């Protein structure tokens, strides 16, 4: 009890000392020991959603299952300008923290993102820009592919691009270098988002889940059965006129280890135990 009180007091102190705005909210998350900080070139392991757990929707951004999946935090910094138009609008001070979770069911890969945003921009209008977020994957599974949207048509990336101006709209894109983003003919990404208002401006944040079936054809659809997949994130802040290269990104690749312990070795017991553990936790929390 004393320990819990001291953490609460420390958080309250932090909140009162921190600068107003996004920074203080992120600082309070910083003390959460369950969120591991991830740097580019680190590896994260895919979480597992056992088939025995019922999901109302595969892409519900606030399903209780996400409380049982490992959560990570990574810093997105402003993308280096590669065109005069992005250079004109470059502001190096606009980095942001992104919280992410990656999990798989037996047939879907799920990516959940959360980030602080005090302004909800859901319109694409004459002078208004939308909030957006994306995850990109190196299609060849190699970190030699440029994390700046791929290295030409031979080493492209697959991008799942969520845009806040259309509910459930996640574009399935490919690119082989900046300026080459192309919408794929086969649109196979599901998505669902929620804007959390909270009581204070600093509590406002986007929750987003993007999902795709593990098995998917198409030259530019990421093969989610690969053991290791380099990936990175981008977030566009509509309120700052974010679009195109005016974004905050992972400056490098993070590596996704897709193996589930027990699956590859045929050791089903371990997987079953994990299933049972998680089912038990879920049922306890439901009570």
């Amino acid at each position, binding site marked *: 009890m004393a320990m819990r009180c001291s953490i609460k007091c420390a958080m309250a102190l932090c909140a009162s000392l921190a600068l107003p705005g996004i920074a203080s909210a992120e600082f309070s998350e910083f003390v959460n020991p369950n969120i591991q900080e991830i740097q580019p070139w680190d590896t994260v392991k895919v979480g597992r959603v056992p088939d025995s757990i019922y999901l109302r929707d595969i892409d519900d951004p606030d399903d209780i299952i996400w409380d049982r999946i490992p959560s990570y935090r990574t810093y997105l910094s402003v993308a280096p300008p590669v065109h*005069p*138009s992005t250079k004109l609008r470059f502001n190096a001070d606009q980095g942001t923290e992104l919280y992410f979770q990656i999990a798989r069911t037996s047939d879907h890969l799920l990516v959940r993102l959360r980030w602080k945003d005090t302004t909800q921009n859901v319109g*694409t209008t004459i002078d208004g820009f939308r909030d957006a977020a994306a995850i990109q994957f190196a299609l060849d599974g190699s970190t030699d592919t440029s994390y700046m949207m791929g290295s030409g048509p031979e080493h492209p990336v697959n991008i799942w691009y969520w845009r806040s101006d259309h509910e459930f709209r996640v574009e399935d894109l490919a690119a082989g270098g900046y300026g080459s983003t192309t919408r794929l003919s086969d649109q196979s990404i599901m998505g669902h988002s929620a804007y959390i208002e909270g009581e204070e401006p600093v509590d406002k944040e986007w929750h987003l889940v993007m999902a795709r079936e593990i098995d998917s054809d198409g030259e530019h659809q990421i093969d989610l059965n690969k053991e290791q997949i380099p990936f990175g994130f981008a977030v566009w802040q509509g309120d700052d006129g974010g*679009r195109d290269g005016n974004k905050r990104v992972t400056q490098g690749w993070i590596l996704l280890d897709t193996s589930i312990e027990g699956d590859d070795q045929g050791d089903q017991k371990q997987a079953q135990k994990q299933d049972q553990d998680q089912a038990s936790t879920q049922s306890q929390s439901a009570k």
Partner: protein
Amino acid sequence: MAVKRQISMVLDLNKCIGCQTCTSACKLMWTNRNGREYMYWNNVETKPGAGYPRDYEKMGGGFDKDGALKLSKQPTLEDYGIPWEYNYEEALMTGTDPWLRPNVKPTWGANWDEDQGDGEYPNSYYFYLPRLCNHCANPACLAACSRNAIYKRQEDGIVLVDQERCRGYRYCVNACPYKKVYFNEEISKSEKCIFCYPRIEKGLATACARQCVGRIRWIGYRDDEDGPIHTLVEKYKVALPLHPEWGTQPNVFYVPPLSSSKFGPNGEELDEPRIPLAYLESLFGERVSEVLDTIKKERKAKNEGRESELMDTLIGFKHAEMFKLS
């Protein structure tokens, strides 16, 4: 940007009567539907005046002296004018509404300040300035597009937005200092004057030029020495680009307007034009005075019964001579 040929337009501001027939022709053909309702690819504004979109001349864009793109204000829908419709059915047909009125409360629109002009009576003045995309030799919209979605056609230099490549970033809207690229919210892509290229390809003049009742517009290729553009721009040098200092090298040119004399305090005519030379120079550059002198000289010649190729061209006797599209 080098192209094989460059199509071009000259507009004689001495002949424009501000009737908006060009505006209507363009709107009916291209912009009265599908998210383009607020757009006027061709508009006629009163100068001096705020223009369309409002105060576009103060927004920025174009290039600086070193050739670098300049940031601009992103115009708002209010700057263009929120398009409105009338309740014709209710007011005029069914009689269920006693008033004919717009469905939004209009506060601004293209041509809102029509005929206001400037100056104090009896020396007040204004003139009309029809505007369309300049299909520039150095288009700021093209330079600003990070996706290479904007291109200039080799065969005629018409600047177009590739609707397949455009992803609606609106850098082009920002970069064009003339604000002649527009964002279509319905399709999340940018659109602009296409110089009626389907008509041009058939040897026909643009809708705005063909419909012009004042016959103020000439169309032809810059390199055609037998065509009207060469006569007006190169031979007599009486057609000038709008705001050349913005660095985009327009291919639409204007013959600046002469004006009657200013009146002195006792009603006497002064040797000074009603439209201040400095104002015209702020629009069309430092050659305005020289151009006005040439027109005055040629007018005098025609008045006196002498030959004037320039005046014969500017009168525009035949459409076939005004539009030389081969």
